[in-house]
């Protein structure tokens, strides 16, 4: 029982990270058809900027500071990427993807040049470093922080997309970009906003991944990115609820399978992906293929 609780808590913690990365990825892909390979780099940048803040400010203040700094760094880099790299290549979707591939290679190498290839240890504030007793299992407190933030983001995104005019434009853009443009609405502004929003979530994920592992290293973002892609494919591009469900499924399957046998977790995620692809005859947007 304690093992089950512990596995579930860890799985949900991972699911929270996957959701943070995949939600931005999914919205960007749904709205702009850009598969953003630089998204993992945004995660890493958020992680390192957050680590630098936490390194200078200790305690809870440092934690809040690093979370905010991670969000700001992720959003800033993503917005700059959209402006400088994605927008000039508008109308050349393949080149947009290729350019993000180049960024995805170059940025982690740059981070490695600045902060070194070895992982940097992240010291948590005292109240976060402990464990919480759930049904006899000692679950690290960080897991609850991850889950709490992910749930908050899910609710915030649902409200933003469902209740505001900006959200309406994004949802309409995901459905049919040309039609929205034809109605006289500038989708490009929505593109920038979604990119910055996704980058902010990715930067936040970078900080949280650092807290989760207790360290940051240049390859963190890239390793999260692969599973975030799986989550996007499973959840359907542009669907926030689908992304959340898929993230939970991937996180839990990975943890349970890992318990059965080490390194089986990652394989079982891919098997899950293959099974879903075989059984479902729909394309990414959720429309019949």
């Amino acid at each position: 029982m304690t093992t089950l609780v512990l596995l579930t808590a860890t799985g949900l913690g991972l699911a929270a990270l996957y959701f943070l990365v995949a939600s931005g990825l999914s919205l960007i892909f749904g709205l702009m058809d850009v598969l953003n390979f630089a998204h993992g780099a945004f995660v890493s940048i958020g992680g390192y900027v957050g680590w630098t803040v936490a390194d200078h400010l200790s305690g809870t203040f440092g934690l809040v500071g690093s979370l905010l700094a991670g969000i700001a760094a992720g959003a800033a880099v993503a917005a700059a990427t959209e402006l400088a790299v994605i927008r000039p290549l508008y109308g050349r979707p393949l080149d947009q993807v290729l350019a993000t591939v180049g960024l995805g290679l170059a940025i982690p190498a740059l981070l490695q040049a600045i902060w070194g290839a070895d992982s940097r240890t992240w010291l948590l504030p005292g109240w976060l470093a402990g464990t919480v007793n759930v049904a006899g299992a000692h679950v690290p407190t960080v897991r609850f922080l991850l889950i709490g933030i992910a749930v908050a983001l899910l609710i915030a995104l649902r409200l933003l997309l469902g209740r505001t005019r900006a959200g309406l434009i994004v949802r309409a853009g995901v459905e049919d970009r040309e039609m929205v443009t034809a109605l006289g609405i500038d989708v490009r502004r929505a593109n920038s906003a979604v990119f910055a929003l996704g980058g902010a979530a990715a930067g936040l994920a970078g900080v949280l991944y650092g807290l989760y592992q207790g360290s940051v290293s240049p390859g963190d973002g890239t390793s999260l990115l692969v599973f975030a892609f799986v989550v996007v494919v499973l959840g359907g591009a542009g669907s926030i609820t689908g992304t959340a469900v898929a993230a939970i499924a991937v996180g839990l399957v990975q943890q349970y399978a890992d318990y059965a046998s080490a390194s089986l977790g990652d394989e079982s995620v891919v098997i899950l992906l293959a099974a879903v692809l075989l059984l479902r005859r729909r394309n990414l947007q959720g429309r019949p293929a």
Partner: protein
Amino acid sequence: MTRARFSAPPVRYRRIWRNNWLRALIVFAVLYFLPYSTISIPGVFDGPLDAPGVLQLLAVCLVFAGLAVSYDLLFGHTGVMSFGHGMFVTAGMYVTTILVNHAGYALFTSAALALAVTLIASLLLGAVALRVGGIGFAMVTLAFGQAVSILVISGSPQLTGGEQGQTLNSSAVPAALDGVRNTANLYWIALAYLVLCAAAVWGLTASTPGRVMRAIHENERRVEVLGLNPYLFKLLAFIVSGLLAAGGGIVYLLLLGGATPTVSTSNFTLSLLVMVVLGGAGRRWGAIVGGLVYGYASQSLTRVSGSSAIAGLPGILRGPLEQPLFLLGAAFVLIVFFAPGGLAGRLAAKTTTTGIKEG
């Protein structure tokens, strides 16, 4: 002005050069005779062309070029973006090594079995993954490639050697391919592999299925409307390119003398994409040029990164320049921006002004 600089050669030679098969024959013949020459090109290579170190470097370039050609069949000719190409290279490399080292099979039997395994694997994977189109396919193949990578690195260290990789049992390697003195033979094997890839891909793209692949690249919906099933042609391209990649894995294994998990990483597949785009996707010589240039650059950038010229620079400049991936990634973005046709596209644009058609 341009006309004056690129003064056109006499018509007789131009006609020979324009014939693609003759041109290929000339290029490959020159490459074939390289190990016999003792010319040294200072600043480009460390020693004369027949030195084992230089031949090894050139052979790796040739293997990369062959792999790039195999990737281009999918990416440039059929318009299918796969991020799992490295897993077929891994399959060729690791199945051969494991069969030789742990099952005691001969090298050729193991290599043949590795190709058979790849054939089945690419058929199954392609059948599943091609059900999602476009970018979704890229994500799915990336996930599968990652699964293979994790399997190789941490699945069974006794079998695969984990992060260190595994040395190929040297008693199984024929004497003609063993040792530094025989580097020339390895070079010729790498060249033969490149010729095989080029012939297979050029032959296939000139055939009827190849024309359908090109049509899928241009407009998949139209191919469907014409009553053809794009799925089957994409699957064919996927299997052929997978088999060629596995062959490349086997040749690379011989060159390195052992299996290395770097070929399974997503960065390796991305580097194949960089080669193809660098050279010019879907062009006859694009992938070959890209593979050779990338192979040379990636091997000598590591050397430049550690050189004294870089070490003398102030820290803020030195850091990024010591990272080959940073330079390659940044160069890649610039190429996407400013030279969408790649190097071959550039060359073709220039030679067209002298009256020679691009090839």
